[in-house]
């Protein structure tokens, strides 16, 4: 085992992205991967490297044997292992990279594995204990069976596949909540409606009594409040619902107030009018979460996230909050002398503390209503929730197990991104493989046939199948002959680089799903490096 300080050093560059909490989540995760091709080893490589102990509990399910081609394209098999289990070989070589890792291989075909689960439930334990399931280059029947099981257990699943220069990554998760989204938002300064302590502080400063040196050190928050007051008094009105031109008047006023033209802090304040001289508004994503049906009722089974959201609803309804979220306590750096800035920082921090105390009262009510003890939600969780209240995110993707003849999820987005034909061709290719028991363009099945002739025929059939799918979805969309031909040209064999790009995306999404930090994509990502079209929705 590594000590904490070893770990801090070893994982320094990633701890700066997801901190200790994210790292702990990764180390406790259990990832089950179906398939052992380049897609699988490249995805796992990016998970095993950053998190030794827990993703260490990774399992690879596949019965494939190592071929000559694997040795030349899958970095994580050994040349000496020709003919042996590919799943075992990639597990061994991935573990070799990081001595703390624990991986295991199950030498069973994913199709067989899925059948066992469906028939007798005998292998379901492995699946049900997973934090995340990844299906690499699997037939649609396997993807759908796994996805259906995962959906009901709220386990995220990522299905990834590669046709030469083109790759597809699909994610399904019933519900995924994010507190630490790391979203960038505008600074929350509340200068339009200063809370009592901020108002008192601004009032305690008399700009007219300051000389030009001291004026140059007044923080922009105070300058903004003064300018808004002055503007409101001059126009005999209240500063709210300001138009763009009114905001510009306040900016001009700030420039007039500067002791010397271009004084930095006054300039800073003038440019901050754009983002700060607007009425308080809840961020759209947060509003959606608050309005979600799951936010409206609680019981003993309600997840901590929704308990907290329910408390947030009550908080926002309270007179105390005036409809504003708990303050995060953070303010950006601004031109100021040390004392003013530190004072200001303290004022916002105290506001955040007070908001959290108020929020806790509502949370206790919620927990009481749900018949849960008051310590049911840890104080760290409450801290993080209040600190990130304006950055909450929720992802609910479409399921992956719907009938292929039904209109695909996000069809419009796929069409807009120029990748609906790709999506249709991937589905058609699976239908082709089911029908012919071989991938389009693969010659082995007809050894005497000319390869160019075979590719031409298969491309034609694939194109027809894709067009039929589109018409069953009742969507008008052209599928280019060249694109169908490009799919067939690949023979659905993986190209190392395209698998490595896709594996990188899989790992990135896996990390986001496991840590509940940053925001995963909404479900479908198609990367076409033959045409430099990349679309994600």
């Amino acid at each position, binding site marked *: 085992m590594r000590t904490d300080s070893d770990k801090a*050093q*070893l994982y*320094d*560059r*990633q*701890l*700066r*992205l997801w901190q200790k909490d994210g790292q702990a989540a990764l180390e406790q995760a259990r990832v089950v991967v179906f398939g052992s091709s*380049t897609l699988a080893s490249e995805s796992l*490589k*990016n998970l095993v*490297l*950053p998190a030794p102990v827990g993703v260490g509990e990774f399992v690879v399910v596949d019965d494939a044997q190592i071929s000559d081609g694997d040795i030349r*394209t899958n*970095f994580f098999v050994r*040349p000496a292992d020709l003919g042996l289990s590919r799943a075992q070989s990639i597990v061994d070589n991935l573990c070799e*990279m990081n001595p703390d890792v624990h991986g295991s291989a199950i030498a069973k075909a994913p199709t067989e594995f899925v059948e066992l689960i469906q028939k007798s439930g005998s292998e379901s334990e492995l699946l049900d204990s997973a934090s995340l399931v990844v299906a690499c280059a699997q037939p649609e029947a396997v993807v759908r069976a796994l996805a259906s099981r995962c959906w009901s257990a709220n386990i995220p699943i990522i299905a990834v596949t590669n046709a030469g*220069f083109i790759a597809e*990554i699909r994610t399904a998760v019933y519900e995924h909540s994010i507190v630490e989204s790391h*979203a960038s938002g505008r600074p929350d300064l509340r200068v339009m409606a200063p809370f009592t302590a901020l108002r008192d502080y601004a009032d305690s400063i008399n700009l007219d009594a300051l000389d030009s040196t001291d004026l140059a*050190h007044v923080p922009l928050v105070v300058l903004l409040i003064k300018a808004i007051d002055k503007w409101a008094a001059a126009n005999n009105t209240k500063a709210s619902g300001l138009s763009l031109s009114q905001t510009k008047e306040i900016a001009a006023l700030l420039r007039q107030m500067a002791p010397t033209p271009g004084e930095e802090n006054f300039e800073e304040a003038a440019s901050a009018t754009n983002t700060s001289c607007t009425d308080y508004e809840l961020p759209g994503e947060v509003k959606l979460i608050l309005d979600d049906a799951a936010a409206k009722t609680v019981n003993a089974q309600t997840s901590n996230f929704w308990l907290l959201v329910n408390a947030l609803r009550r908080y926002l309804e309270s007179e105390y909050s005036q409809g504003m979220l708990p303050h995060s306590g953070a303010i950006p*750096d*601004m031109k100021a*002398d*040390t004392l003013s800035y*530190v004072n200001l920082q303290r004022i916002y921090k105290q506001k955040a503390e007070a908001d959290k105390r108020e929020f806790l009262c509502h949370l206790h009510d919620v927990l009481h209503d749900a018949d849960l003890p008051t310590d049911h939600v840890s104080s760290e969780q409450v801290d993080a929730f209040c600190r990130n209240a304006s950055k909450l995110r929720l992802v609910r993707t479409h399921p992956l197990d719907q009938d292929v003849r039904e209109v695909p999820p996000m069809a419009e987005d796929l069409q807009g991104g120029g990748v609906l034909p790709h999506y249709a061709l991937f589905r058609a290719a699976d239908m082709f493989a089911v029908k012919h028991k071989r991938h389009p363009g693969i010659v082995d099945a007809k*050894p005497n046939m000319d*390869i*160019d002739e075979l590719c031409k025929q298969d491309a034609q059939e694939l194109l027809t199948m894709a067009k039929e799918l589109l018409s069953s979805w009742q969507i008008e969309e052209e599928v280019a002959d*060249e694109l169908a*031909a490009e799919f067939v*040209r*690949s*023979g659905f*064999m993986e190209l*190392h*680089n*395209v*698998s*490595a*790009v896709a594996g*990188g*995306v899989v*790992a*990135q*999404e896996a*990390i*986001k799903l496991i840590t509940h930090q*940053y*925001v*995963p994509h*909404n479900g479908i990502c198609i*990367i076409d*490096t*033959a045409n*430099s*079209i*990349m*679309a*994600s929705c």
Partner: protein
Amino acid sequence: MAPVASCTTGIERFLTLKAPHVEDFELVTEEGETPQQMLDKANVLVIGAGGLGCEILKDLVMSGFKNIHVIDMDTIDVSNLNRQFLFRKKDVGKPKAEVAAEFIRQRSPDVNITAHYKRIQDMPEEFYLSLSLIVCGLDSIEARRWINAFIYNLAERHGYEGFKPIIDGGTEGLRGNMRVILPKHNACFDCGLDMYPPKTTYPICTIANTPRLPEHCIEWASVLEWPRIFPDKKLDGDDVDHINWVVEQASQRAASFNISGITFSLAQGVVKNIIPAIASTNAIIAAACVNEAVKLITSCNKYLDNSMLYTGDAGVYFFAYPLFQSETCLVCGQKEGSMDALSTSTLEDLITALKEHSVFQLKAPSLTYGETSLYFQKPKMLEEQTRPNLSKSLNDLFDSGSTLTVTDPTLPTSLRVTVNFSDKAS
């Protein structure tokens, strides 16, 4: 009839079948060469054997490239091991290029890989002329600018023989970018220089007089206090004792100003300008780069025109776009730059402006006017001789509209900069 039945890898298959998207893709050229042979004989240089470099090497070998050079002047640190997967704990302290090359040799003995534990500036011109293509996995803007200008110059002087495409990858946290640079044919690295903002710096007056953030206190300890207390010792960001000293000094200063938040990790981050880095982003960008290398060498599919951005912090977002050659580019646009400056400003002000200006972004410029050395950063003797000029006003040194010759470590050749006094018509 093509011998496809014997293909055991995807790339072999692609190189022996017609390309639907590329009309002029030839399975055999007029000279009798196949795309597979082009791949076999291609000679690729990988610059950087770090996070991106390790991935690029793996990707090249797994794509079928057989002749590879890798150059890196760095040695392995423990903090590299979370993503630089060709290195193990036992390798800490050894040269990255050599350890990476040895790992590749063990994994794929049929690949011809050569390590160079050197600076790119130390390789001879013949070496660069022998290459087919360069893939860059660097975190330094300075090194990328140098190689870009050098290779541009090579293409100018040697025509087709000197034409070496550069595929450049870069990552930061969950974001990355890629450029396909065809010297003289499309935008060069410097044409997109304004996309890489200069590193965050804190004004000296803030650090010295009005610190507000823990970072300001760390800068005070590392930039102002360290050289004062240890004039003969360079601050080493990797030396735990050095960083501990910075933490201690910064903490005392922070406490006296009521500022909180000084930690070892933050101090090291500020001192070394650490950029967060993870395996997955490097994997995406490196593989995207080598995918372009395969296309460029074999013509089996269209290469990227010419830039791609990736962001993964909110959703998965790829964006391909053409970057255009910039008229103000110092490498491939006008070869002369111009600067506006106040006649009363000092030479030191001008040097600072050359470092901060988005078009120049120089690192340590030395300036000459005609035969007169205005300021030289090196050698020490010349620096001391020219140092008094730093505090002189520009109008005491030359007239408005004068053209200075500027040299800088980021540029392989010198640069001419015309300085116009904005307070006086020239």
